[in-house]
C-alpha cells in the first residue's frame, strides 16, 4: 500500500509528465509510464483519425462517455483497445481531452 507521501509524489510525477511530454521516454527495464492524452493521440488514435483511415474526432465536442465506450469496444473497422493498452486513467483523461479538443488544421477525415 502506498502511503500518503508516495501517493503525493506519484501525483507530482504525473503532473510533471503532463506538463512535459517530450521527456516522458521509456527507460530500459521499466514498463511504459502513464502517457498524456496528447501522446496517446499522436502514437495511436492519430494514425487513423484525421489521416487516411477514420473520421476526424477532434474539435467535434464528442461526448467523453461515447469516446470511452468506442475505445473499449471498437466500432466497425476500428479495433477495440483494452485496459492494458490504454490504461483506465489514461482513457479518462483522453476522452475528456477529445471532448474539449479544438479542430486541427491539416487533418482530413475519411
Amino acid at each position, binding site marked *: 500500500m502506498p502511503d500518503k507521501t508516495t501517493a503525493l509524489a506519484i501525483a507530482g510525477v504525473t503532473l510533471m509528465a503532463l506538463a512535459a511530454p517530450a521527456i516522458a521516454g521509456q527507460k530500459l527495464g521499466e*514498463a511504459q509510464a502513464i502517457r498524456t492524452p496528447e501522446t496517446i493521440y499522436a*502514437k495511436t488514435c492519430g*494514425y487513423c483519425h484525421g489521416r487516411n*483511415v477514420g473520421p476526424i474526432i477532434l474539435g467535434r465536442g464528442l461526448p467523453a462517455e461515447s469516446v470511452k465506450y468506442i475505445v473499449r*469496444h471498437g466500432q466497425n*473497422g476500428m479495433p477495440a483497445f483494452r485496459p*492494458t*493498452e490504454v490504461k483506465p486513467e489514461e482513457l479518462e483523461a483522453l476522452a475528456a481531452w477529445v471532448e474539449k479538443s479544438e479542430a486541427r488544421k491539416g487533418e482530413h477525415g*475519411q
Partner: protein
Amino acid sequence: MTDINMDRRGLLGAGILGAASLGLGTGASAKNPAPLAPHMSKADFAGAMKAFRAVVGNEWVFGDEDSVAPYTKVYVPDPTHRHVPVGAVCPETVEQVQEIVRIANTYKQPLWTVSTGKNMGYGMTAPATPGQVVLDLKRMNRILEVDADLGTCLLEPGVTYQQLKDYLVENNIPLWIDVPTVGPIASPVGNTLDRGVGYTPYGEHFMFQCGMEVVLADGQVMRTGMGSVKGSTAWQAFKWGYGPYIDGLFTQSNLGVVTKMGLWLMPKPPVYKPFMVRHAEMADVPRIIEAMRPLRVSNLVANCNLMMSASYQLAMFKRRNEIVPDGMPLDEASIKKAAKANGLGMWNTYFALYGTEQTVAGVEPIIRASLTASGGEVLTAAEMGDNPWFHHHSTLMEGGLNLDEIGLLRWRGAGGGLAWFAPVAAARGVEAERQTALAKEIVEKHGFDYTAAYAIGWRDLHHIIALLFDKSDAEQEKKADACYRELVTRFGAQGWASYRTGVNSMDLVAQQYGAVNREFNAKIKHALDPNGILAPGKSGII
C-alpha cells in the same frame, strides 16, 4: 462515407445517440453468456478467476460481459460466436505468469496467450475454442536490453513496435525496426510468434529472432539457445544453442508462454531507395515473378517484393462505391480506370535498395533492366512524389510506422470484416497465374472482391488475399465464412496450404498438413501440457 454513417456521426457528435446502442456484436449477453470450456463447471471458473485476482489484483482480471468486451472484438467471420473468450487476466511479471499457469492447471482453465493482441484479420485476442481466458501480456512491456554494437535487443511481449522505435530514436541508436503493416499497435514478440512478416531485409521475422524465455505449462521457466548457459554473453547473438533447436516449437503453437524474446535489428543503411514497378495488366503477374525471382534469390534485392493488385491498393484508401455502384461486380475496366486516375497500375510492385551510394548505384541498372524487360515502368520518389500508396510502402520498407492499411476495413458498407487467406507456393509465375484464377472464381462466386497481393519472401511466394466484408451484415458474415472455407479447401487440394491462419480456421488448415504431423504435434502437446491449459486449438493442436 455512406449517408447512414454521416447521420450516425452527426448524432454521436450531438451526444444524442448513446454509443452503447451501437452494439457489441459478440452474440454474448448477460442472459446468454459465452460458454465455459466443456469440462468446466461455473464453480471451477469462479475459483480460477478468484485465484487470478489474488495474483494480479482485482483491476487486472476481467470476467463479466462488459469488461471482457474489448477482448471480443474480431474482424474475422464468426457467425456462430464460437470465438468468444470468457475472461482475461493481465500479469505484470514472469512470476505472476508462473502463478497463473499453476492456477490454470488446478482448475483446468484454458488460457489463450497474447502479447499485444492485435492479430487483426486472424482473430485479435479471440481464442480458437470456447471457454478460454485471455492471458494478456501487454502490461509486460519492458525493453530489457538494446545492444547498439551487435544490433540486438531483448524484449518483453507487451512492447509495441512504436515503443521500440521511440526508444531507439530517443536514445539516438542507429538501428531500424522491421514492422508488419500495422506497427504502432502490434508487437515484435506477438508478430514473430505467429511468424509474421515485414518489409525491410529483416522482414522474415522468425529468422531474426534469437533466444527466448518461456514459461512452460508446468510453471517452470526455460531459456532457449545460449540463454540457459550460466555466464553466456551470446543469448541474443547465437540462435541455435546446442542439441535440438526448439525455438520453433513455441511459434504458432501452444506449448509455452513466451515471456522474453531476443531479436536482431538492422543497422540503418547510409542509403535507402524505394522503388515501385507499375504493370498495366492483370495478366502481368507471372512475368513480374519471373523477373523478380533471380533478383531476390541472389539477394540483389534484399527485401521481400510485394506485388499489390490495383483492387487491394484502391481498397486501402477508397470505398467500393467510389469505384462501382453498390451491388455491381467490381469489373476490371472500372478498377483500371480508378487505378490510372491514382497513378497506379494493375500490379504495383514494391522493393527497395539498401546500402551505400556505390552499391545502390551499382545494382540499380541491373534491376532496372530486368524489370523494364518484364514490361514494367520502374518508378522512384522522383516520379511518384507524394503519391499516398508510394508513400505508404516507402514508409514500410524502412520500418516506419503507420496504420493506413486499416482503411481496408471500410471498403464495403459499414465494414469491419476481414479474414486473411495466405496460401504458400514456390516463387514461380505459373503458380500465381493459376492461383489468381482460382481465387477470383471462389471469391466472386460468394459475392466478394479479389483484393490481393503476392509477396516473394525469398524463394517462396505468398498469395495474400484480403477477404473483405461488411461484418454488420449477418448474411454477409455467413457468406464470408463459407467463402473462406472454400478458399482453404480448394487451394489445399492443389497443394497450396496457408502459412498462418485465423482462429476461425485453425483446425481446417491443420488437416492439410497431414495426419502424421498432427499426431507429432499432439504427442508433444500432451507430454508438455497434460491438462491442456495452454491455448487449446491453436494451429489445430488440442
